[in-house]
């Protein structure tokens, strides 16, 4: 069996702030994930702001160093790679970010970002070939090269800008694209186009995606597996259909119940209370992170962090409500 494209093992990241009185903020805690090389998948990392999803993206891309744990690309630790391996890693793992405008230098034509990729990874042996593969990549994403090339970023619509970014990520034919909120800044109809693009790249070109979002509806539409993050920890994960239609963790239930349904006949049930954020962070140490807000909270929840229990064939929830179920295999290690 080939090594997974990306294997994330017990990854944690804490940020330190303060010069004299140092405070630690745990942004991500003991996160594990495997992106198999067998068949292309779309895996969603979902969470609200402050849940650690962007920290995870930066860790996977090797932009920041983990406090503990490992990120393996093709079986090799990204922080112990040779220079050549590092280049290969960055060719095969591409990224798309939220704001398609920030990525462009406004003084250069759009072609520039695409040319850079071709040059950096030596994708073409001459200029004509370079032009050719750029045009092909744009066409795969449903863009007309003549409408895009030679323009400045401000001359493109938001949707075009973002699709050029998808084309840029697709150019080196990577094995994995990490997409951090790629559709949160575009309109509904363009959002659909970009999601279709992602599905097409998965289906026709065998590219896997890690899709980072706060939007559960689009996650449900395109992904295979989903991880729900809450304050840096995984609350629930597994098959996306199971998690969305049959959520087990009270936090996931709250999230899904809060998505406004586009149907005036289906209204929000009940009201929710939001405790002050600092209180939530404070009491999280040594307890279930969700205990302060949980409607089912028990004594145990305030004293111990819950391990991950298996609640279905490919469905796991870190919640004591399911303590009669078997523990998730990999999480058994850390139960003291």
């Amino acid at each position, binding site marked *: 069996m080939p090594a997974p494209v990306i294997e994330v093992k017990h990854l944690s990241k804490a940020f330190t702030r303060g010069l004299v009185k140092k405070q630690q903020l745990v942004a991500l805690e003991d996160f594990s994930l495997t992106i198999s090389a067998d068949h292309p998948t779309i895996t969603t990392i979902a969470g609200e702001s402050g849940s650690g999803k962007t920290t995870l993206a930066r860790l996977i891309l090797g932009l920041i160093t983990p406090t503990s744990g490992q990120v393996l690309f093709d079986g090799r630790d990204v922080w112990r790679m040779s220079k050549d391996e590092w280049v290969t890693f960055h060719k095969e793992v591409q990224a798309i970010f939220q704001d398609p405008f920030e990525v462009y230098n406004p003084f250069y034509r759009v072609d520039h970002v695409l040319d850079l990729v071709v040059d950096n990874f030596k994708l073409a042996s001459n200029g004509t070939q370079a032009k050719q593969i750029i045009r092909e990549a744009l066409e795969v994403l449903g863009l007309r090269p003549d409408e895009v090339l030679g323009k400045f970023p401000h001359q493109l619509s938001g949707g075009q800008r973002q699709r050029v970014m998808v084309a840029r990520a697709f150019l080196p034919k990577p094995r994995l694209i990490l997409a951090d909120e790629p559709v949160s800044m575009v309109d*509904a109809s363009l959002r*659909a186009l970009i999601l279709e693009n992602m599905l097409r790249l998965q289906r026709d070109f065998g590219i896997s995606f890690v899709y980072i979002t706060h939007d*559960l*509806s689009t996650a*449900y539409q395109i992904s295979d597996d989903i991880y729900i993050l809450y304050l840096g920890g995984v609350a629930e994960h597994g098959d996306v259909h199971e998690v969305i239609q049959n959520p087990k963790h009270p936090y996931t239930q709250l*999230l899904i119940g809060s998505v*406004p349904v586009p149907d*005036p006949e289906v209204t929000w049930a009940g*009201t929710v209370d*939001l405790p002050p954020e600092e209180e939530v962070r404070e009491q999280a140490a040594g307890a279930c992170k969700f205990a302060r807000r949980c409607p089912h909270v028990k004594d145990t929840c305030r004293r111990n962090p819950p391990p991950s229990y298996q609640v279905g064939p490919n469905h796991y929830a870190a919640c004591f409500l399911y303590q009669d179920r078997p523990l998730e295999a990999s999480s058994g290690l850390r139960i003291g």
Partner: protein
Amino acid sequence: MAQGANGRVLEVENLRVYYRTAAGPVRAVDGVTFWINKGERFGLVGESGCGKTTAANAILRLIRPPGYVQGGRVLLSGTDLLGLSDEQMRETRWSRISLIMQGAMNSLNPIMRVKDQIADAIVQHEDQPQPPRVLDDRIRNLLSVVGLPSRAISMFPHELSGGMKQRVCIAMAMALGPQLIIADEPTSALDVVVQRVVAQMLVDVEERLGASLLLIGHDMGLQAQLVHRLGVMYAGKLAEVGDVKSMFKQPRHPYTQLLTSSLPSIKRRTVPKGIPGLPPTLVDPPPGCLFHPRCPFAKAVCREVVPELREHEPGHAVACHLY
């Protein structure tokens, strides 16, 4: 304060707002007519660039050059706001109409405590000065209505989370008991749970004041949850207006039909089809119905004649030649 003779708090008649550009005027809002009844929540939706925010700004007379109001009337309880002097309009704003802007939380002054910002809004728009203690009590009361702890009163904006800041803005918007609150994408920068809390708070505040609400946004889910009546805008014009339930159950305009069928949902696991094509340029709009280049049902007449917004059945108006 009394409302208009017909029980309507706001009436917008044939409002036109254009922007001057080198290529000619951009018709951002072009002949928009709608009204809001007392105590009613009215939603205005559309893609970005459809003119919904421009319409809201015109109601508040906040259009700045190169934009200008080309024509139309905006009646607040019978008073035409477009005819008021700048001073009269300044008095009207906040005390009779208030605004919660998109990302309003970022409009809080970073070096002023919450208390001082709210006090500022009250003092600026009320004639009689109030003793500090009375003002303090009022602010504390406002904050508790929007569910903020009373210690928030002496905090700075950076000490508050996004949802809390947005609630401070709601507290400011209700401070003077306006008849109409205009909320432009009030929750678009917030997480889903916080969005729900803030949206429910907004409805609660609106009902408590007996005010009306104009909710501007692109999120059909949020509109479905909050408003009574809904208007759909396309390229500066209203395509359809009606009761929110019939708008979702039986949308008449092909644009509304495509819009409601392309909604992402956690009930359905397919990527919804987007609406093919792009909105027209408003400098040189196509002749006839502005939607015809994207419309699956376009007929010859649609390419020539601009459809009027007409009542198709009581309480439901549509601008389309199919009806």
